């Protein structure tokens, strides 16, 4: 196995693993704080039980996110030392500020998890709110480093700007990327958590605990999912203007044309420069990218072949991401439509919610593949090729297999623990909701 391939694979495995827990670490605290706030406001004990349950899930996912994040901060250098030697001083400020936010998150999480008895209810809630806020801020800050790699700040001569420490924050990709990624964390968390409660209700546990768990999780998930297409549009608009090659790759748009069609589905054939089995909607790509159905959209043919990213991977990941997103919007709206008509969530709705619950996480991973594969062959677009950043150490294949195995074992162990956590509804929930007749019935 070649060092570059192994290094990219190790980075992919590490980031793909970390990202799930980072996203849950941003989303879960918000759910946990919302439930605790409702408990303090209404005094209904099932909200407290939800807050405690979500706090446990947060504790597990945060710890794994923290250690896998530590691994990444080392792996930046271990796998890409020449990139870090070149760019460490430029992207560093983003990591430094993120470090403070992450530090606050760890401190307040300690206070929250272990402080149920030691802090006043208001102080405890405030600690939880600080976890949710600092988690969100740390995610936004760290995306600046990636935004700079997508679109580095260049001076008039096209050289990288080194004398401005705010360079990562001045990358014009930062705004659209951080909005899109933050929303995706809430979508992933909301629908993943909703699946747990939908499954519980399918098994007959239609108590206040499960209803509120489902409603809170879907409240967060649906709200974020509805905003995501808007954010995605900003993102596509930005990409069309500033990274046209990436747009052409993930849209599998081979030929520069006016009034370009949107390609839905299909398998791109890079040799023949066609997409097999796709649905084409005339002029839609031009309209989405430039708000003009007759605008010219640059195709892959406008760029040298050796600078193309992997079109098949980028296109399939993009299609997968969008499909997941719309499936989630559909499921979320179905749930709220049912609620608005004051109907009970039916079995088909609950089954659908269980079915779509992993799609938020899948969309998150797919979106990351779109943006990272779409940047190749560059590690810093237009400045440094990925192969010029890779390490000279030849042991990378071994560490790649070792870390993949480690993450596989940890992922399975964590999934089993979370499953145990999810199925073990607290007995207090039954007592708390005992006044509700349907609970007595379910028991």
């Amino acid at each position: 196995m070649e060092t570059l391939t192994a290094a990219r694979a190790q980075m992919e495995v590490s980031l793909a693993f970390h990202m799930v827990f980072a996203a849950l670490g941003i989303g879960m605290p918000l759910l946990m704080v919302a439930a605790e706030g409702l408990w303090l406001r209404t005094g209904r004990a099932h909200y407290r039980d939800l807050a405690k349950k979500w706090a446990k899930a947060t504790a597990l996912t945060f710890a794994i996110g923290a250690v896998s994040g530590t691994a990444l901060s080392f792996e930046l250098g271990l796998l890409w030392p020449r990139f870090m030697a070149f760019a460490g001083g430029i992207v560093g400020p983003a990591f430094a500020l993120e470090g403070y936010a992450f530090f606050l998150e760890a401190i307040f999480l300690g206070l929250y998890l272990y402080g149920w008895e030691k802090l006043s209810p208001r102080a405890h809630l405030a600690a939880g709110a600080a976890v949710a806020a600092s988690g969100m801020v740390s995610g936004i800050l760290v995306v600046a480093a990636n935004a700079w790699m997508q679109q580095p700040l260049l001076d008039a001569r096209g050289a990288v700007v080194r004398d401005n420490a705010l360079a990562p924050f001045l990358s014009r990709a930062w705004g659209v990327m951080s909005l899109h990624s933050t929303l995706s964390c809430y979508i992933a968390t909301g629908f993943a958590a909703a699946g747990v409660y939908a499954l519980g209700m399918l098994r007959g546990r239609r108590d206040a605990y499960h209803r509120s768990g489902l409603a809170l999780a879907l409240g967060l998930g649906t709200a974020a999912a509805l905003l995501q297409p808007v954010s995605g549009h900003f993102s596509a608009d930005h990409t069309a203007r500033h990274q046209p090659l990436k747009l052409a790759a993930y849209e599998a748009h081979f030929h520069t044309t006016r009034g370009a069609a949107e390609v839905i589905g299909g398998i791109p054939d890079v040799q023949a420069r066609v997409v097999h089995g796709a649905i084409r909607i005339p002029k839609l790509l031009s309209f989405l990218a430039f708000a003009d159905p007759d605008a010219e959209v640059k195709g892959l043919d406008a760029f040298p072949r050796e600078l193309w990213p992997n079109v098949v991977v980028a296109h399939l990941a993009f299609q997968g991401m969008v499909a997941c997103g719309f499936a989630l919007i559909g499921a979320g709206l179905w749930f709220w439509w049912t609620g608005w008509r004051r109907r009970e969530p039916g079995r088909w709705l609950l089954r659908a919610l269980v079915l779509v619950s992993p799609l938020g996480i899948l969309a998150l991973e797919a979106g990351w593949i779109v943006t990272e594969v779409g940047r190749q062959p560059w590690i810093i677009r237009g400045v440094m090729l990925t192969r010029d950043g890779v390490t000279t150490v030849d042991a990378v294949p071994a560490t790649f297999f070792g870390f993949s195995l480690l993450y596989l074992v940890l992922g399975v162990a964590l999934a089993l623990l979370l499953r145990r956590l999810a199925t073990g509804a607290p007995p207090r929930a039954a007592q708390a909701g005992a006044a509700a007749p349907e609970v007595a019935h379910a028991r």
Partner: protein
Amino acid sequence: MLADLAAGLALAALIAYAVLAGADFGGGIWDAFARGPRRDAQREAIAHAMGPVWEANHVWLIFVVVLLFTCFPGAYAALSIALFTPFHLVLLGIILRGAAFVFRAYSPQSIRRPGAPGRQARRWGAVFGAASVITPVLLGMCLGAVSAGGVHVDPAGAVTIEGAAPWLRPLSLAMGGFALAVCAYLAAVYLANETEGELRADFRRRALWAGTAVVAMSVLVLPLLRARAPHLWHGLLGARAWPVLAVGVAAALLSGWALWRHRPRLARTATVAQAACLLAGWGIAQHPYLIYPDVTVHTAAAGSATLRFVLWSTPFGMLLLLPSLWWLFRVFKGGAMRLTNAPGDGGAG
């Protein structure tokens, strides 16, 4: 000057990591070596002491790494190549330690013996203990490797290793053992502070053993320093470092005496001072080298805009961080802990 300040900041963060997270590793060491009739109670006390703070303590390491690659990107790149294997092993240890700690806390308890850990929890406990022993040794070895020489970095950044792997040399191995002893000592002293009665006596005894080990390891390290790293040896005896080291040695003697005389609070203060002064002395003696002999603070420094940003943002960051940390430690480390919570419920709370 800017680069020196940034290096000082990184050293301060490293000291914070050592005295805070070092004790968490030490807790894991004592978990692995929990013995006697109060074995489960010792483990529970350790988990209880670590639970609320270990994640925050761990972030100091991320701080050190971020400061290193932001302010000294060239040194970070060279270290990543020269210490590729030990850094990966450190990561393995860090990941397994953290994961096993939380996995154990959320694993089911034993069905046959209520209050005792179940089989799954015991397995994760073993992983936690083993990773806590191995990681500080490896970190100490890495610290030794940057002083031991043998890592050559040419101006273009290409790294060549002369002779044996720098982290496997006698000095590095001795530094690894020294780090292990210091972590065990810190943890035992802190735990003696945070427990009462028989448990306190257990941890006091362990602190005395670990303190003896620290002294033994220093006796081993000193001649090695003189023979294998003369530049560091002269630096340690130089006018800038020796007063710091002298304070460190005095603090070490004081902490031993205080332990012996059953004064755990004084022992804790002295132990913190001891660990901080030893690391500070090492940092001062190592200055200006980041990796001896080719990489210095000045040759590896990032641009002045970056350094200025890092230094200027620090007071603002600390303004948020320090009061929060103070709150965390006041709530959980304010007095001797009461072990009233059921085990496993501590984390699960």
